[in-house]
């Protein structure tokens, strides 16, 4: 500050300097710039921990997921000779002896180093039986004698199939599109062209569709239930609304698993609700309603769990709407309903938008609750992603499904931005 004051003094003194300088002769402009830069640097250092945290825990995992969805290292790394030799193959008829010899070399090395399993796992995604083809052949590869072509076909007739070699040739590149194809229910046909799977094997596209439909239903039900609650909270006197607020937040603080299990107890066929309906005579004993282990269960339980995410943004927006607007509209002659619809509701749009996008994005990736109460018809795409991560261990397919989901969210966000405007979002 002193430098600036000094410069001002100089001006005030009326010194006829063409340029403003500080006491030590540095031009004021660059001195200011330096101070500014220092401030920026300090600010940057203050956010560095957070930035690093976000890079390590968010950006890098997403990048590695995107990479894993196309990464295809198994054949290039563990069948190096075959990958090189098969380049000369024209795709008509079986490959020649050189390719078979290269395969035997790779099988011997892969069997000794126990790396052939990774090739087997990779190719088994493309063709049933590849696992035993590779693991079994590797176990006996060092006993084989030339000519290797006959020897390998003798060992396992699959080596004599052109389709086997076509798959090997196709997957012999470090980048593959097959995970993405599988994730949209497509695959390679006999002739190598891309085509849809048979009707009874299409699974992911319908599931993406179901995820979308269920997430929209959940968003709409939370809005329908949450709007009146938020309105009540925002208009009641403080001492009542605080109590109500605790009722909204209490379940929010309760463990997710406890709440989900509670819904099972309530909704199952021998559960509380069915028992009440039967004892009231509204249902016959052998005609109980199936409310859990299906899509209904998923929607009910997730609506309950995500309700606070809708109520809180709505409440924070409604709290800021002056009640005098409504009174003004009424005093100007509007019917209360019309005033409410034309004056009040439009002002809550930022809250509706924030709540809706929050609930929708959370529910599109939800998986614990659908896994427990969803049965077979209430599963979401995230359950299949979890399945491929943990059980089938097809991490490439899981990554491809995850990337598509991510792209879907980004597109919806973009649409939202175009339609509502992201600057209107208000969370509190």
């Amino acid at each position: 500050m002193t430098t600036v004051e000094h410069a001002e003094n100089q001006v005030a003194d009326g010194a006829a300097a063409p340029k403003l300088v500080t006491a030590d002769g540095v031009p004021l402009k660059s001195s200011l710039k330096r101070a500014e830069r220092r401030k920026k640097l300090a600010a940057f250092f203050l956010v560095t921990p957070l930035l690093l945290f976000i890079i390590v825990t968010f950006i890098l995992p997403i990048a590695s997921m995107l990479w894993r969805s196309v990464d295809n290292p198994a054949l290039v790394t563990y069948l190096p000779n075959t990958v090189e030799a098969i380049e000369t193959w024209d795709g008509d008829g079986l490959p020649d002896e050189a390719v078979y010899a290269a395969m035997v070399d790779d099988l011997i090395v892969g069997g000794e180093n126990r790396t052939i399993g990774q090739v087997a796992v990779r190719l088994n995604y493309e063709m049933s039986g590849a696992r035993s083809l590779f693991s079994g052949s590797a176990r006996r590869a060092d006993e084989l004698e030339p000519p290797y072509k006959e020897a390998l076909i003798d060992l396992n007739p699959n080596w004599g199939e052109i389709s086997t070699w076509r798959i090997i040739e196709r997957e012999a590149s470090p980048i593959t599109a097959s995970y993405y194809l599988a994730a949209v229910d497509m695959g390679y046909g006999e002739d190598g062209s891309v085509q849809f799977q048979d009707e009874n094997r299409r699974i992911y596209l319908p599931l993406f569709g179901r995820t979308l439909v269920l997430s929209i239903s959940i968003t709409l039900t939370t809005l329908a239930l949450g709007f009146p609650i938020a309105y009540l909270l925002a208009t009641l006197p403080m001492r009542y609304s605080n109590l109500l607020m605790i009722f909204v937040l209490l379940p929010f603080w309760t463990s997710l698993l406890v709440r989900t299990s509670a819904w099972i107890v309530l909704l199952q066929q021998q559960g509380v609700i069915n028992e009440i309906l039967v004892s009231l005579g509204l249902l016959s004993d052998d005609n109980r309603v199936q409310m859990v282990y299906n899509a209904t269960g998923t929607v009910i339980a997730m609506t309950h769990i995500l309700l606070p995410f809708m109520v809180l943004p709505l409440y924070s927006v409604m709290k800021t709407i002056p009640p005098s607007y409504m009174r003004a509209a009424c005093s100007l002659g509007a019917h209360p309903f019309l005033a409410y619809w034309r004056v009040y509701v439009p002002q809550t749009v930022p809250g509706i938008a924030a709540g809706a996008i929050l609930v929708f994005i959370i529910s599109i990736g939800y998986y614990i609750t659908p896994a427990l109460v969803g049965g077979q018809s209430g599963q979401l795409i995230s359950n299949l992603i979890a399945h491929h991560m943990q059980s089938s261990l097809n991490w490439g397919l899981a990554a491809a499904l995850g990337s598509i989901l991510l792209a879907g969210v980004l597109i919806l966000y973009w649409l939202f931005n175009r339609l509502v405007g992201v600057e209107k979002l208000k969370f509190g």
Partner: protein
Amino acid sequence: MRSIALSTTVLAAGGLLALGAGSANAQETSLTVVSWGGAYSESQQRAYHNPYMEANPEIEIVNDDSSANALAGLRAQSQAGNVTWDLVDMLPSDAQLACDEGLLMEIDHDEMLAPAPDGTPASEDFLPGSLGDCFIPQIVYSTIMSYNTDMFPEDAQPSSIDDFFNVEDYPGRRAIQDRPAANLEWALYADGVAIEDIYDVLATPEGVDRAFAKLDTIKDELVFWTEGSQAPQLLADEEVSFATGYNGRIFNAAEVEGQPFAIIWDGQIVEWDGWVVPLDTPNLDAVMDYLYWATDTQRLADQAKYISYGPARASSADLVGEHEDLGIDMVEHMPTNPDNYFAPILLDNNFWADYGDQLRERFSNWMLQ
């Protein structure tokens, strides 16, 4: 359920105490043993871990209930170059995959395992076909069909896999596991395929269609479970009248918790379960010492005091006696007891290694439709 929760708390408290006591000792080695949790881990704790820790106070054994995702965990740890598991309880099919992928230590069975008391080397004492390149079996278990006896009239209790598929005479919903293994075998068995032909039929597209067609006949009545503990829970709640499950869990629920469950031994799907050692475990010497001790004849027979799974060594069979707490004779509850072993289906791991990916996809698809 409460008794399990209670015993876990006791175990956890015991673990904390052991941790506190151990910190005074600088020589302490901590072994992380990965297993299935629940009644099964408890049987291992009581048969192996506790006596071993008593005899070797410098060793502390920590349980990790991650076996359901063991293969994923082994792969992830190997890729990250940070192996934190010392011993893993695994199914033989997963163990074979992990072994082929170079994630596990290869086992020289006669060198690394104790011989039988009469001197028979380990490779001849373990049940035929049960030893793997990297795999040491502990138990023979089976996936069985069970039912709630309260839900059927006393004179019309189900007794076979056929009855499971007979919705008219045996009404009620049925809980099955959300994976094809066992379910497809049963579907073909109930459709009249001889047990020895099941996998040959299932290897053909027509056979797969036939199995799914049979499952279709009861699809409206099906509920799917994921975790082993869900099956007894669904049965106890009378949410379903039949549930497939692991024989030890059903035994536990029926005998220890007093649930009205009965087991249908017809068509039981028999499989092994056992230990593998992750490659690059930091405590290799301690693990091998523990393994030599925990797989000897007496120790394997001891586990059968706590859960109804058969020991994987021939020499252990005669030592199986009474349940430690209940005093009931365990022999009649073993899947391998001749009274129960009249129509076993031996799970074919090679078949599932080859066709598993495709069938699992078809099965999930069928489930979701």
